[in-house]
């Protein structure tokens, strides 16, 4: 293999890593507040179709991104309403969101299938940085979105660990009754966390249809939302570890179509299973580690909070 294919691979690793990281970061925020949202795939699809549509109609990538973020947040808020406010089962509601999102996006996007994208984020021009061999191409040759994802990861880490808002959010996800008795608004915090989760999933979808694989077709998310969900567990609900995992899982996604070129005789289907195998391995490792201590998962994850009535 030559230098060019390797650089192409690394470029693709970061692209897929970004795609997964944005969605997983959103899910991490929602799960840290105690809400499991299995609708990532659907939220990504909705964000993807919205961004593509706005891009084609206006040609403005920033507007397309903004609309995708808003659509993702609004779509996620359906889950917020059903599972957090009304207290329905989070698993059922999240699955419904995935099925709904994939279906609705296919319907809304049917006129845009195989159209050329109207807007995209170009590779940044960083002057001399672009001239550095290797990394000048695959790191500094990226568009703005991977940098945004990195910044969002750092902001998320800071907010979760160093601010009052983050403390309240984690408290709500660990023990809603403890947070409630300390005067923290449980339902509002969870609603906002779910909406932010949707916003980031929408952003991830927009990156997919505008940059990573420009274009729209039904099923374009191709299960990456599920990988993002697995990634949150793999990264033990920590923004940094989820970032490392995103590069690892992104690497697997990037390798998949290239195996043949590299002359490796492994079925790509086996490779596409690897993220889940790694996640199961990570879960086993986590539960062995938590034999003598509380689990890494937020303790209230998946449970509805109702204030106790007599």
């Amino acid at each position, binding site marked *: 293999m030559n230098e060019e294919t390797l650089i192409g691979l690394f470029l693709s690793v970061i692209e897929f890593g970004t795609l997964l990281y944005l969605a997983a970061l959103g899910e991490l925020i929602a799960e840290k507040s105690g809400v499991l949202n299995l609708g990532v795939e659907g939220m990504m699809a909705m964000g993807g179709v919205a961004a593509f549509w706005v891009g084609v109609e206006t040609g403005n990538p920033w507007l397309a991104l903004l609309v995708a973020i808003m659509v993702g947040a609004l779509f996620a808020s359906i889950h917020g309403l059903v599972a957090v406010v009304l207290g329905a089962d989070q698993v059922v509601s999240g699955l419904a969101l995935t099925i709904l999102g994939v279906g609705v996006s296919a319907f809304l996007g049917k006129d845009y299938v195989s159209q050329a994208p109207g807007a995209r984020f170009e590779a940044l021009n960083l002057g001399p940085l672009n001239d550095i061999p290797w990394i000048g191409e695959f790191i500094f040759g990226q568009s703005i979105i991977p940098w945004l994802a990195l910044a969002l990861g750092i902001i998320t880490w800071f907010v979760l660990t*160093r*601010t*009052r*808002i983050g*403390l*309240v959010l*984690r*408290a709500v996800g*660990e*023990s809603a*009754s*403890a*947070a409630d*008795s*300390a*005067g*923290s608004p449980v339902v509002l915090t969870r609603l906002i966390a779910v909406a932010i989760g949707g916003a980031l999933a929408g952003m991830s979808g927009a990156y997919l249809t505008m940059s990573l694989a420009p274009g729209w077709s039904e099923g374009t998310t191709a299960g990456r939302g599920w990988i993002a969900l697995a990634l949150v567990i793999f990264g033990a609900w920590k923004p940094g570890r989820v970032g490392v995992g995103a590069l690892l899982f992104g690497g697997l996604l990037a390798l998949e179509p290239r195996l043949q070129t590299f002359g490796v005789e492994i079925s790509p289907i086996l490779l596409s299973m690897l993220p889940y195998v790694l996640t199961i391995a990570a879960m086993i490792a986590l539960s062995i580690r938590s*034999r*003598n*201590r*509380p689990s890494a998962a937020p*303790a209230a994850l998946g449970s509805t909070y109702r204030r106790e009535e*007599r």
Partner: protein
Amino acid sequence: MDNQTPAAELVDIWKRFPGVIANAGANLMVRPGSVHAVLGENGAGKTTLMNVLAGVYQPDEGTVSLAGQQMSFTKPAQAIKAGVVMVHQEFRLIPTFTVAENVALAGSPSIIAKRSIEDSVAELADRFGLATDPSREVWRLSMGERQRVEILKALWQDAKVLILDEPTAVLTPSEATELGRVVTAMANDGRAIIFISHKLDEVTEFCDEATVLRGGATVASSLPVEELDAARLAELMVGEATEVSVRRTRTSPVAEPVLEVRNAAVRDLHGIATVADVSLTVGKGEIVGIAGVAGNGQRPLADAIAGLESLESGTISLGGSSIEGATPKARNAAGLAYVPEDRLGVGLAPRLNVVENAMMRSYRSMTKGPFIDRSATQTMCEDLAAEYKVKVGKFDAPIGALSGGNLQRLLVGRELADDPKVLVAAQPTRGLDVQGVAAIQQIIVEQSQAGLGVLLISEDLEELLALSDRLLVMHEGEIVAEFDPDTTSRAEVGAAMAGAH
């Protein structure tokens, strides 16, 4: 300080719940800088009254004032803001957070500098003698330390009125003494402390004044504790001086062991040893009592005997045959009956109806082909209710609607229905009213006279001293002492419970 405005005053509080009047004209007046005991039996309305003061409930009638200002709280956050903080019996701490994070949750700036919060928490803790490490995670702490964190949270919120709901229930005697010092330090700082209890010795030791509730109303308010003694307090709490405990004549030394536990050890889910090398024997017709502060391994021991928890090592035999590997069902068949501590949840299924709960042990013998014979189970349940005097409104209503005493009579009746050899009863009278306690104690005594071996686990020392033939004490998962109830004293058993040798 006698002439000051009361820190908190509750006047003529009424609070009704469907079917229950929890407070019927209750009064309470607490002076700043004093420790005020609120006493009463279970169900006397103490907790409801405190919830009214803390803004959890709104009273139907009556007024709440703080420092002379009339208040009407609609939620706890308002009461906290006004300076009323309650430390509940079940701690509201987040186990994975550090002490400082738990305290900061009660109030902090927008950006949290870890070191400076930890320093301020340590400083506050030092001021009131609350030894604690702010950077430790709460799950690593003992119950006593967790309670200190709850008190720290209240002080962090600058509580002027601090309500402690039965704070010593989870503490060892030395931790309780420690708590007494902290409470005094807080009162000296000008704060009012409300100390809910039903233990007279604590009240006379820590408190300045006492208010006694009975049947939702105040029967004595702001009595100086010097005027209280056990007889007077019992009279105030119960109404009239009554002999509450059932007495029994003890059996002579037992010949035939029915339950033998040898070197039993149990670890919990996290691998922590909860029962360590416990050996005990219960003879035919004998009642063996187990005393101990809550959480010293009594529950895992009982669960291990019943087969709900597996033994790490050791043996258990019932009537001579080994059962340590057997399923709970096989143990039942071999003659074991279990009345678990958590009667509604482990013992009974709250949402199933009365008949379904009653037939849980015996439904296999009441079938018509593959189906359950409904009329047979109905008859069985009615007979059971009649025999054990269970007041049942509707047999097809969820059992959770029955009162505590009725639930327990039904559960005990069900467990004793097929003449077991051994009964393991964990906290069988906890939370029951006076008649309920007497009824359960009566059943246990009668059955033991008929040959049943009983392992009685209780936190009520009076009950253990009155009923047991032998009294064992558990501390940190081990049996640390054995006493003859006729010759020992409360103080002697109490010292063993605290781990003194």
